[in-house]
């Protein structure tokens, strides 16, 4: 079974780049080398980068896909905190995901897909809490550490993927 990992964000806006950075770290290993760091071949994993704009995002998956989407979440005082939601089972919290174009971001993509019957088979949303989102800002050290941690965990999942994804371990990294 194919696994699709989607990293969302904006490289020009500090911690908003988190999802894209996870995608790029995975891409470097899974696609460029085709093997993980232990020499284990990884197949059937597609890694995508997205801005987080809803309508394009909905086109990134098909009904039978297993999808893990990584995006930055809004600052709540614990930068680097990693949270995972099972979007097929539950609605996403309204205040977690900073909006994208015209207010259509990850949450809106998921909820519109739910109404239209266009959710994939499984959809896990992995959020990395950001600290700074201003234009031209660099990624905060807390988010940088969380990016590495999520990339490692997804690499492990990619290595073992053979069936529908189960729930990712929920974990908090001290900010």
């Amino acid at each position, binding site marked *: 079974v194919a696994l699709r990992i989607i990293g969302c964000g904006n490289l*020009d806006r500090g911690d908003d780049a988190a999802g894209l950075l996870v995608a790029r770290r995975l891409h470097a290993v899974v696609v460029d080398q085709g093997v993980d760091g232990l020499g284990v071949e990884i197949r059937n994993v597609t890694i995508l980068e*997205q*801005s987080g*704009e809803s*309508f*394009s995002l*909905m*086109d990134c998956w098909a009904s039978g896909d297993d999808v893990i989407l990584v995006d930055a979440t809004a600052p709540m005082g614990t930068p680097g905190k990693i949270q995972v939601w099972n979007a097929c089972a539950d609605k996403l919290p309204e205040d977690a995901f900073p909006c*994208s*174009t*015209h*207010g*259509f971001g990850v949450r*809106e993509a998921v*909820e*519109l897909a739910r*109404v*239209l019957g266009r959710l994939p088979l499984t959809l896990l949303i992995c959020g990395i809490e950001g600290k700074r989102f*201003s*234009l031209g800002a660099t990624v905060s050290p807390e988010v940088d550490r969380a990016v590495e941690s999520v990339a490692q965990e997804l690499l492990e999942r990619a290595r073992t993927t053979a069936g529908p994804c189960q729930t990712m371990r929920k974990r908090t990294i001290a900010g």
Partner: protein
Amino acid sequence: VSKQQTRTIKVDVLARVEGEGALYVKLKGDVVQDVKLKIYEPPRFFEAFLRGRHFSELPDIVARICGICPIAYQMSAVHAVENALGVAIDPSVRLLRRLFYCGEWIESHALHVYMLHAPDFLGYPDAIAMARDHQAVVQQGLRLKKAGNRIVTLMGGREIHPVSAAVGGFYKAPSKSALKELVDELKWALDASLATVRFAAGLDFPEFEQDYEFVSLCHPDEYPFNEGRIVSNRGLDIDASAYEENFTEQHVEHSNALHSVLRGRGSYMVGPLARFNLNFDRLPDVAQQAARDCGLKVPCRNPFRSIVVRAVELVFACHEALRVIREYEPPAVPRAQTPARASTGQAATEAPRGLLYHRYILDQEGLITSAKIVPPTSQNQKRIEEDLWHFVSQVATRPAGEITSKCEQAVRNYDPCISCATHFLRLHLERE
């Protein structure tokens, strides 16, 4: 409500617009006392970032000003620099730029018509709620937007922040066969756009008209994208190089976006309604007929009918994209030589939301010493406030919640892009 009671209506975060802003309306009884469109998204200083950069970097930098209209920023930038350097582009490159713009108009107009503005007319808080009752409508909008995305992705090298546009042309020109792969979906999109005109024309519109000064580009033969003189329905007829002699920007305390006005005349409107009213006879027959069939008259002075005009422009953009693909022959050289020289260049092109003006001063090495960018939302901002002054009076006797939603709808007539202009929306309604 007592005739003397003060009411304040506040929308602290305007939804379904790009960027961060708020709306404040103060009423004494049913008389409007104050209207402020507050743009609080911080200024982004792009014009300052550009100083000291080489002109060849411009298309990639300005594409990042806006996620929804990067091509408009790229087109105004490259034309301004080409005007500065005296560069003539290949006719095939000119065609490709029109196709590129078609893609952006289709994406942007489909998004606005179906996802941002239609919920207002149909009484839903957002597109997600609307989709529960109007699945087919929303699916059609999504597919139309995707048709535009495909053009942008093909032409720009990628969907977001396209990278192919260059001063002098494109880094790489697509093959004929690559463009032909778009044809079937664009034929569907043209039919869907005609259906969109019928859908939009069937909505209920408030009776509201204003005596606008419409401003847009006007080309002798074409509905405008990249070229033409800047004209208005009150006699303005200038080259882009005379823009700053005729328009000025004013700082207002309540907004981080400058208000653009016509010198000595005041507010004006740019965007689909202005283009349509000033260029109706340049639309292809199929778009003109679609407008006539749904009773759209020229001039149209009801801003709420801009949703129908956007749908007519969807018809135009799909039709134009198909024409370009039919006529396209790849250029011998996709990018003209652009030797640097000390110079100044200006250009205006038609972003989906309206006229977008750029001016650059270059030194002999081609480094930018000064940049000026005037986005459509800055130009419309004063006009939006004036619309609200008059429109709130019409709905002042209604409950506060209804006034709020009507005001937001009136703002969305302009599809404002606050991110671009800050360089928008919460509503505050106060009754005295």
